[in-house]
């Protein structure tokens, strides 16, 4: 009997969690980014506010760095053929967040930049203004 109660309780909690999870878990987006001298490809990533962005970084040549300015995010991307490194970015605030190579990779190192563009969520945008009549 006691086992039966525990099972029911566990199922109830599980159901609640699943309901909550489906209601509150942010959408997740996975983007593959390839780094090579002297660019990230793609160099611009657009996500909607509230998205949990996972950037999977891979190099096509040497070690590169990946640093999102204004944050602590700063990782080394492994050399070609040495795998990928994932980075999470919680797009909570609309805006443009620049990322750049933080490991000297050659003559054009400082040109190696990109941006994460976080667009305001549609349901948070103000209603469209009525056109002039």
């Amino acid at each position, binding site marked *: 009997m006691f086992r*039966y*109660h525990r099972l029911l309780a566990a199922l*109830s*909690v599980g159901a*609640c*969690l*699943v309901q*909550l*999870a*489906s209601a*509150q*878990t942010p959408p*997740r987006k996975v983007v593959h980014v*390839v780094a090579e*001298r*002297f*660019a990230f*490809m*793609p*160099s*611009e990533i657009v996500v909607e506010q509230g998205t*949990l962005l996972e*950037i999977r970084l891979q*190099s096509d040549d*040497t*070690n590169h*760095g990946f640093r999102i*300015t*204004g*944050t*602590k995010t700063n*990782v*080394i991307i*492994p050399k*070609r*053929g*040495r795998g*990928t*490194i*994932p*980075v*999470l*970015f*919680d797009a*909570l*605030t609309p805006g443009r*967040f*620049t990322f750049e190579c*933080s490991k*000297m*990779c*050659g*003559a054009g*190192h*400082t*040109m190696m*930049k*990109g*941006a994460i563009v*976080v667009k305001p969520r549609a349901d948070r945008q103000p209603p469209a203004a009525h056109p002039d009549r």
Partner: protein
Amino acid sequence: MNRKSSSLPVNVCLCLLGLSLWGPGRETATAQPATPAPSVPSQSPSDVTAPDPAATERARLRADLERLEAQLTMLKQRLSAIEEKPTSGAEPPPADPASALAPDAPTPSVAQAAEDASAQELVTGTGPLSGYMDFHFNKRKGEDGVLDFHRFVLLFTHSFSDRIRFVSELELEHAFVEGLEEAGELELEQAYLDFLLTPKFNVRAGMLLAPVGIINERHEPPSFYGVERPFVDTVIIPSTWFDVGAGVHGDLGRGFSYRAYLMAPLDATKFTAEEGIRDGRQKGSEANVRDVALTGRLEYRARPGLVLGTSFWHGNTGFETPRIESRVGLVEFDGRYSQGRLDLRGEFAQVFIDGAGEINDVVARTTGVSPNIARQLRGFYVEGGYRLFPSTWSHDFAAFARYENFDTQFRMPAGYQPLGEFDRTAWVTGFTYYPDPDVAVKFDYVFLQNRSDIIRAPNSFNLGLGWWF
């Protein structure tokens, strides 16, 4: 009945408990500062888009828990970082990526990342000093072999702030320099300040690389096939082409990026028939800037692996011959494509020299010998390479072949005849072994031909060792 009714309050209590346990976690996740949350490596479940709704929900739940776990790990790392000695400088602290993979972050991502790249691998080479070296053995047919430490290059960088950076490249060519010796050169190829304003618009000033062609800005030995740089990137585009100047650069979005500089002009009196405009570079050494040259490049990254570029140079060149209207114009187109293990690239460049005939006359009167420079130079090449080892291996082996056609007397001024020895074609074929992606052991053979019946172009055999760090 009693059993059912008695289980109800228990269930409600457990649900409330579940809610109370769930609430703070989500609250923590959303109560981030205005800046985005610092990231921690994580693994997104592959079943995010699974068709089964229950499975999707489970996956989402798992992902959210995973994220909370990752944030907890990140907070632990922050705490550790605060407790430890603070690091300085713009370069990533060596511990950063490694700490992301530390055992106290046992998320699935950690296991994956650790599997993909060892912590040792991730933390190598993070210092402010970088460089590359080129060590060659060249054997021309009919001549003695030459062993040459061709290039020893060190790059120094410094960040004054996130918006002001310094980059420099100091190169020692042919290992030895003595006053006025022609054998070696000590060159300051780059030394500039970058003022980073917006992604689309930034300012740069100092000693700059001309943004022309593939090789001039990408000349690290492991980044190109062949022991020596392509002929087109040597005698048509005079790599390494550097001079003092200032300009702007940026990323326009949608795959487009640009550079546009004003730079010190070329000196037309130093042009030659064999190497075109190469000796006309002032190299930022008390450069005459009575006129300035405008140069620029537009690059388009159409899709992963495909890069298309075009560049130009335009400027007066007659500051040593003020009575002659002399200008140099250069147009260039290039493309690179990598798909899987296949690498393809091609480049076309053409140089226009206004006033070439007058320059020949003036130099002939001054020195007694006409440089016989052309009014147009042209060159192009196509290259294919194939990496033979699987991409999962830590070392690699590539075979390549390149066809080049380059003529430094493509069109001559009125009254001057082109010489066949300067209309050249080359087949360069060989292989590169990469014990590490930054180390290249190269071999190639060059079949060089020209249109002269008298002076034959010698074939050559080359071995090279190049590395970047």
